[in-house]
């Protein structure tokens, strides 16, 4: 538990290094699930056509963001038996195709690893103070929160 990695940083992260760490902490774990989010090079929502995005800016709330991620991981550990958890989220200016976020979970069984990593991402998307501004062809624009993300997080309740 003390080996959990929870980091907010500007620099890119090494997927290899994060995977190797999870594997080395695996203990009795036989299942590792990783999620990686990449910057997409277009914007789309229900109301507008796709538009090219040349980059994004990620803002956060230093202090609160980290403790929010820790709380989310603690919630996951209450629900599932997990050997190791890693969460890395980047902030600042990012380019299309850049890695934004990594969530990795190692557990004894695959069910727990899949569910816990999915849960952490759904909660991160709706609870952790990060805000995304897209550099669109039509100008910079703060991204609106998505109803689908709120619904995704709600389905873990009750």
């Amino acid at each position: 538990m003390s080996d959990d990695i929870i980091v907010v940083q500007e620099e890119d992260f090494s997927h290899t290094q994060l995977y190797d760490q999870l594997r080395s902490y695996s203990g009795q774990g036989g299942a590792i699930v990783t999620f990686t989010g990449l910057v997409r090079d277009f914007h789309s929502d229900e109301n507008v056509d796709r538009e090219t995005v040349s980059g994004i800016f990620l803002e956060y709330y230093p202090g609160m963001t980290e403790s929010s991620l820790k709380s989310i991981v603690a919630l996951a550990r209450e629900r599932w038996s997990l050997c190791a958890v890693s969460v890395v989220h980047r902030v600042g200016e990012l380019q299309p195709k850049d890695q934004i976020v990594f969530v990795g979970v190692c557990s004894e069984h695959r069910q727990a690893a899949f569910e816990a990593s999915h849960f952490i991402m759904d909660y991160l998307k709706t609870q952790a103070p990060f805000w995304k501004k897209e550099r669109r062809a039509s100008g910079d624009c703060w991204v609106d929160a998505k109803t689908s993300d709120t619904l995704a997080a709600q389905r873990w309740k009750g």
Partner: protein
Amino acid sequence: MIKVLFFASLRDKLGVSELAVSIDQLTAISHETSVEVLVKHLSSQNAQWGDILNSDASLLIAINQTMVESNTVIHDGDEVALFPPVTGG
């Protein structure tokens, strides 16, 4: 003093990222110094701020870096943050 922080689109619209409010400015409005009272105070400073703060029902609030509801009471020395729904990941 109460430290008030604004983030992302809200900060851009208000044109300020941080300000200090004296607890006395809130007790002058109501003896129950809730976040709602803080918003009332800020709205009274500037008509445009009032429009911005009251038009968006989805604003989130954190006191001392923990999410709270708008009826939560603020104490002297607290750090209060107002921000739009989050969009990370």
